[in-house]
């Protein structure tokens, strides 16, 4: 019996999420779990006709949860690198984003070039692809890896503990809304263009096939675009959450 049979029998889709912050995965004011990825996962469960259970881990627990079979799939704003794909099976990308540089609005670092100066303190997220990219893009800089999610990067830059931050552009945009408008300068140029994808195990080929089909379907019928427009490409979600 395949994973899909199991899910049907169980009547429950178990999804591991990491609550990295808006817009992909967050906990709303009333404690409700929501975000772009979260809603997509909910949509998946609806299409499967089962109920959904979110397993909320921090970064340390996310991969073990998937690998140990505690979760069927993993929904986070995760970049499918080739190294990672040696261990888990990624779906096809459902959106493209990329890392960007941001600074405090009144900072003396005005452009990505400025940040290449020797000794610039650059905040990145531990384990995120931005960490790797910052290392290549700013070889002379002082890279600082933080744990605990994108908002803490903004906080570090805002407090002056770092000169610039490097993170996924959608995350930066989504998360900077918690600050007064114009607190940060987000550089227009991207360090990289990266896909985002969901992950599952290689022994769950049936589920992987189904998820890929799901992504095809929702992009064809516009539901994916609607989700992204609401969460990623605008601030609309702020009104409701």
């Amino acid at each position, binding site marked *: 019996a395949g994973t899909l049979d199991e899910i049907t029998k169980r009547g429950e889709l178990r999804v591991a999420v990491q609550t990295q912050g808006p817009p992909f995965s967050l906990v709303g004011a009333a404690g409700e779990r929501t975000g772009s990825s979260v809603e997509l996962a909910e949509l998946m469960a609806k299409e499967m006709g089962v109920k959904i259970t979110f397993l909320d881990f921090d*970064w*340390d627990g996310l*991969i*073990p949860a998937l*690998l*140990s079979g505690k979760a069927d799939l993993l929904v986070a704003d995760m970049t499918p690198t080739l*190294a*990672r794909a*040696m*261990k*888990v099976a990624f779906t096809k990308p459902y959106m493209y984003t990329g890392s960007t540089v941001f600074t405090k609005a009144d900072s003396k670092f005005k452009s990505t070039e400025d940040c290449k100066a020797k000794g610039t303190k650059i*905040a990145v997220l*531990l*384990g*995120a692809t931005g960490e790797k990219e910052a290392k290549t893009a700013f070889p002379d800089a002082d890279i*600082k*890896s*933080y*744990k*605990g999610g994108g908002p803490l990067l903004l*906080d570090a830059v805002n*407090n*002056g*503990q770092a000169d610039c931050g490097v993170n996924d552009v959608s995350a930066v945009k989504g998360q900077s809304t918690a600050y007064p408008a114009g607190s940060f300068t987000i550089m227009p140029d991207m360090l990289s263009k990266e896909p985002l994808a969901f992950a599952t195990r290689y022994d769950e080929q049936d589920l992987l096939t189904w998820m890929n089909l799901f992504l095809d379907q929702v992009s064809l019928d516009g539901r994916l675009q609607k989700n992204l427009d609401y969460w990623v490409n605008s601030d609309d979600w702020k009104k409701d959450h």
Partner: protein
Amino acid sequence: MLENFSFRTIVEYLPLFGQGLVTTVWLSLLSFAGALAVGIVLSAMNLQRGWLFRVPAKAYIDAVRATPLLAQLYFLYFGLPRLGIILPELVVGILALSLNSGAYVAEIIRAGILSIPRGQVEAGVASGMTYVQRMRLVILPQAFKVTIPPLLGQAIVLVKDSALLSLIAVAELTRAGQLLASDRFMPAEGFVTIAAFYLLLYYGLKGLAALSGRWLGLQPARSSI
């Protein structure tokens, strides 16, 4: 996760773990030195008769003991910049560990001093020593002996606590494991390796405690009842 356990990858990451280990060791050493300094000052304040020094010292010790190191770390890390003090992460980390462990060290020192028999104090008094002389010549040398083992116990705690500094971007031992977990998605390899290194440090410190006990001529514990 275990069936594909990859020793090869661990070996590949070993230099990184090595660096992390070195960082953990020296930042623990510095923090412990700091903790001793903080602890000595606090216990001196705590042993005063007057409330002026004793009360603040007690309050500080209680506050530190009753709250998690994580909260203390962030309190310093996010709080200091609001006062316009921007320090490198490592410094903040060492400061946080020193201030945290210092409270526990203070309690250990106080207990050590109070464990010295009353007769020792009286012998000092009777031969006309001043308070400072008594402390320096009679009480502290003896208290030192009894505090060494619990102090090394606190050092073990401190080494493990230093893992928390990975949160504020200090590249110590734990972080090396996390890197392995996130780059290669090999959490088992990452964390088991970390555990092995911490265990190594633990046995090192424990051995030191046993040795110091023997050097200082402390009685080995009775083995059975």
